[in-house]
Every structure is written in structure tokens, then in C-alpha cells.
């Protein structure tokens, strides 16, 4: 997936990836990634958990807007269902 991100970035379009496999993301060299140590197949979280899913989207978009070096891997450390998720403050993306 990082390889696809790099091809897109190469034509001048910024990308942000969600990673469930930290070392692989680092080795391939995704331009920006948010890593969570969650079960494979669940990059945005659990089914029917919109606040968790929107929190991940927010985190990714926040990195998209704010990253200033290539290859940064953001690690928010969310603990799957042991964290409580709230509606993000989207105004912070402006």
C-alpha cells in the first residue's frame, strides 16, 4: 500500500495512510502514516463504532495537513475498545 501512496505522491498529490503493520510501513516508506496496533482488517476500528472511525479519519487528516517531513509515522496509541472516543473537533483542521 505504501508503494501506491508513493506513486501518487510522485505526481504531486499528498497522501496519508493508516497502518496496522508499523515496520512494513516504515520499510516501504509511506510518506505519512498513522499507526495503530489493532487487529488486521480494522484500520478505522470496530464495526458500527462511528466515533472511533471518525477519530481515526480526523487523526489521518490532521497528519495530512500538518506533517512537514516525509516518512512520519504518527502513533496515537489508541487502545482499541479500551479507549473512549469522542466526536473530533474538526475545526482544528482549518
Amino acid at each position: 500500500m505504501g508503494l501506491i501512496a508513493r506513486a501518487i505522491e510522485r505526481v504531486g498529490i499528498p497522501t496519508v495512510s493508516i497502518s496496522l503493520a508499523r515496520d512494513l510501513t516504515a520499510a516501504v516508506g509511506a510518506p505519512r502514516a498513522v499507526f495503530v496496533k489493532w487487529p488486521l482488517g480494522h484500520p478505522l476500528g470496530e464495526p458500527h463504532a462511528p466515533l472511533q472511525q471518525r477519530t481515526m479519519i480526523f487523526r489521518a487528516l490532521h497528519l495530512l495537513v500538518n506533517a512537514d517531513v516525509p516518512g512520519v509515522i504518527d502513533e496515537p496509541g489508541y487502545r482499541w475498545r479500551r479507549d473512549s472516543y469522542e466526536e473530533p473537533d474538526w475545526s482544528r483542521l482549518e
Partner: protein
Amino acid sequence: MHETISWLQKLSNRIYAIPAVAQWWARRAAQRSAALDGEDNAMPFARLHKPLSAARGVLITTGGVHLTEQAPFDMETPQGDPAYREIPVNVAPEHITITHNYYDHRDADADLNVIFPLAHFQELVQQKIIGSLAPRHYGFMGHIDGELVTTLTQRIAPEVAAKLRADGVDFALLTPA
């Protein structure tokens, strides 16, 4: 939906779903994957040149997402299926399905937002947090190996990148299986 997955594959998928096992796999895969991108090792880095509220986004997933009327991903070839499927932005959710034997996608089947958050993105556009969405989004299979990695990096990924340019896309969110 009508996949034939052996009990062994199902067991394997359950084991790899354990985050610690997945990270062990990632470490091993990382050792094989260094410099997969060929001769050009400099990391490309583009910036968003407009506010997010004016930007056009695209979703790309390697979770095996495709339309029910499209050919499923080929799970028989050991090196994977490097082709992609285009998902129109206004597709009804019931026309989207997942073909992928190498992860447990029952949760993503139950709620596509787990892996392909098109519904959330449509809501973010309505809320004027994101400017607009691309007319087409992309499903890949991931798990590409061997010579097909070159096919992906040299031909297929640049082809998709060109389509994003043609569609006026300003940023991409990529989600894995």
C-alpha cells in the same frame, strides 16, 4: 462473498488478527521489502495546497473492496492480483463487496466504514470539512508479491495516480486490510 476459504486459512487469519502476531509479521515482511520501490529511493513528498474544506479527496484501500458486478480479485495466483477496481462515489453500499481470503473481513462486511469510509467522507463533505470527493475511488487487493510488485509500481500505481490528477484530486487516504 462466496469465497472458498480452507479451515487452515481461517485459522491463520484468526492468528494474524492478533496485533502482536501482525507486528511480528510486519517485521519479517519489512526485511524483505526494503527498497521495493526500485531505483528511486528518495521518499516523494507533496503538500496540500489548499484548505481541506476546498480540497477533493479520494479513498484507496487494499482490503479487496469491489462492486458486486465487477470480477472478484483473483485469490488463486500466489503472487496476488495487482489490478484495481474503480468504485463510483455515488454507489449504493449494497453494491460493494469484499473478496480477500487473507484477512477476516466479517466486521468490514458488517460495516464497510471499518475499512472503506466512503459514508463518513460523504458526511464530512456535507459538513463542509472536506471540499468534495473524487468521482471514483479505488479497491486493491494488497498482498502483491514477486514480479508483480514491479507491475504495481511501474505500471498500475502510476496509472491510478494519473487518473487522480485527471479527476482533480487534492489528497488521498489509504487504508490497508
